[in-house]
């Protein structure tokens, strides 16, 4: 059994975890970043380019990984997390034990399982894919259907697994709209003459430069925005997909035949950590994410050495995620500094007691 001590253990080597790690390390703390996958980067690894300026995901990731290599433990399956008054103890599948006074949870999200929206036909029809899969195709520059042809008509379906009481996710995942627009434009750039239609129920583009992207999508790429929600997908005899929705502005039911459907899947909390630790599970909000969601101390109300940041405290884009991680990293810093001071005070008291 190997035992390792640190000032702070960070679970999850996504953008938030890496950002916090960088800051804490620069403040002189000893940290460990535990990652269950075989390489660090989190969901950034799935992405090719990022909205709103088409920056490469790798360009964002590489500076974060710099100087962090030795702190990151990959392929770690955490088995137990326990807390004594002084410290957290984390044990992994190799019985390696990590202890630290502060635990920083940045486990991020997992994409909604699109198969749960049965009527959309994900997992049943070829060429019904999720935004994550499309991003992979974009990354490999291989945007083809299963028959090897290039799609001519694509429908992007917004709010898959978001704001949907039927799958239990009543919240808005906040980044899918802009992701959809980014990907639609990307398709427009890569495949000349492609027709992309976005089926939305609300467009929520609340970030800087997002409106520019929206306008560019409309103006330069002629992406059609149709207000209506997909009701069912069926396959036609030639393998194309027949979709049914209501054009809610026209107030009429409508059908469209497309070659490919991209489901813009929402974010869900990755529950793997909360399942093994009741202490963490307690801090889950009504929407299923960690933290209170209140304006101040949104990530940690109790100040007991447990900190949350990133997409595990609610759907966020990368900027927001890293910003939150930075803020919380400084909270960790204060926490560690205060506990150090109180420890010195304790020692001082004990010394005086012994001497008196």
């Amino acid at each position: 059994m190997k035992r390792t001590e640190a000032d702070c253990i960070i679970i999850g080597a996504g953008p938030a975890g890496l950002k916090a790690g960088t800051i804490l390390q620069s403040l002189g703390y000893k940290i460990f970043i535990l990652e269950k996958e075989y390489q660090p980067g989190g969901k950034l690894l799935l992405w090719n380019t990022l909205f709103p300026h088409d920056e490469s995901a790798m360009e964002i990731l590489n500076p974060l990984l710099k100087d962090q290599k030795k702190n990151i433990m990959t392929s770690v399956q955490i088995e137990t997390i326990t807390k004594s008054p002084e410290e957290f103890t984390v044990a992994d599948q190799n019985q390696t034990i990590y202890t630290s006074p502060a635990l920083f949870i940045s486990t991020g999200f997992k994409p909604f399982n699109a198969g749960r929206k049965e009527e959309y036909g994900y997992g049943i029809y070829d060429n019904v894919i999720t935004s994550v899969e499309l991003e992979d195709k974009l990354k490999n520059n291989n945007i083809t259907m299963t028959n090897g042809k290039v799609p001519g008509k694509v429908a992007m379906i917004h709010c898959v697994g978001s704001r949907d009481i039927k799958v239990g996710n009543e919240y808005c995942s906040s980044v899918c709209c802009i992701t959809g627009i980014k990907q639609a434009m990307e398709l427009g750039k890569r495949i000349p003459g492609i027709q992309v239609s976005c089926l939305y129920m609300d467009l929520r583009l609340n970030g800087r430069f997002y409106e520019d992207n929206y306008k560019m999508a409309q103006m330069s790429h002629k992406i059609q925005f149709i207000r209506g929600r997909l009701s069912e997908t069926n396959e036609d005899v030639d393998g194309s997909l027949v979709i049914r929705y209501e054009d809610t502005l026209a107030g009429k039911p409508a059908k469209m035949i497309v070659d490919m459907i991209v489901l813009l899947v929402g974010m869900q909390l990755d529950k793997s950590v909360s399942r093994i630790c009741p202490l963490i599970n307690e801090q889950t909000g009504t929407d299923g994410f960690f933290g209170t969601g209140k304006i101040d101390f949104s990530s940690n109300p109790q100040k007991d050495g447990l900190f949350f940041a990133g997409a595990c405290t609610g759907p966020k884009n990368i900027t927001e995620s890293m910003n939150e991680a930075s803020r919380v990293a400084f909270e960790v810093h204060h926490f560690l500094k205060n506990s150090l001071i109180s420890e010195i005070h304790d020692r001082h008291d004990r010394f005086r007691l012994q001497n008196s």
Partner: protein
Amino acid sequence: MKVDGKKVFWNEYQKDIADDQYYFVRSCIRQNFFPGAEEAFIRILRNDLGKDLYTDPNHTTCTGIGYHVDLVKLETTMTVIARQFSLMAEAGYHNFVISCVTSFGLYNEILDIWEKHPEIEEQVRDYLYRSTEREFRIPENLVHASDIIFKFKDQIAAKTRYKLVNQYTGKPLQVVEHIGCHYAKIFPEKGIGGAEHPYVLAGLIESLGGEVIDYPEKRMCCGFGFRQYFIKASRGYSLSCTYRKMKSMEPYQPDLIVTNCPGCNFFFDRWQYVISETKGETYGEEGNGIPVLTYEEVAALALGYDPWHLGLQMHQVAVEPLLGKMGVDYDPAVKYIGFSGKQLSKPQIPDLLKVY
């Protein structure tokens, strides 16, 4: 099409089906339209599978049709259904089998109401007692007759004389399965395979060697709709629905339509004639229609029952092409000779749709 994807749903939506000791309630309309169908069900269960099936001469309609056209009040319907349950208890059975999909939906709806509002159940108990001095017990297992056939599909398949395979080409027959709306659309968990991709008929067809067609308008209603059909002015809606479904399945060149609902069976069958008269279109080969059979009729045919004993001459669309493809041994001369040996009167021959 990813069949593996569908299997996920088929595995997810399963239900308990009793092994034996069935109390069988018949359908009001099916006995009149296709009198051989329910008889075939009883014979398959008793003779081929050796099960105990009780058909009660005392049971009445479930009032489903009256209920759906707003003629019968819900309380009355519930009391009538309570009476059926009391008859079942009286006969000493626990497992309720329903022949009609509308009834199946209605029974499930009422059981759901009673579960959520026990006070209503109490009240119905009171109504039943006051009107008939009976008491009832909720069945332990309530299934649709097609669920039973599904459960024993492998046993049936093992015994079959004919397969759903085209004996001329050796290829599987192309089969359209149509599930009655009330089978699973009200309570997806009550149907095998759920509401979006039901498996109850598809499973049977697969085990008999046929191939199920997934056509775009698969999920649409056959067009029956009580309010539509019973008012002549709105009958066009009913016809239009069937027309759309027929147009949608046409490119797949189906050999057979299988349904599990009395209404669907009837309307697919009869409307093909009306469409041929109004539009001049037929959907089978050489002016034939697409034969429409119930699940029991298909199973019975496969088991080697005589088609005329099954009452297949009561179908508008001639089944002879199907019998030919399946290689069923039958005597065309006795088609219109009844059980009593008397000649049934021959139908009028339509202009377009072929009748033999």
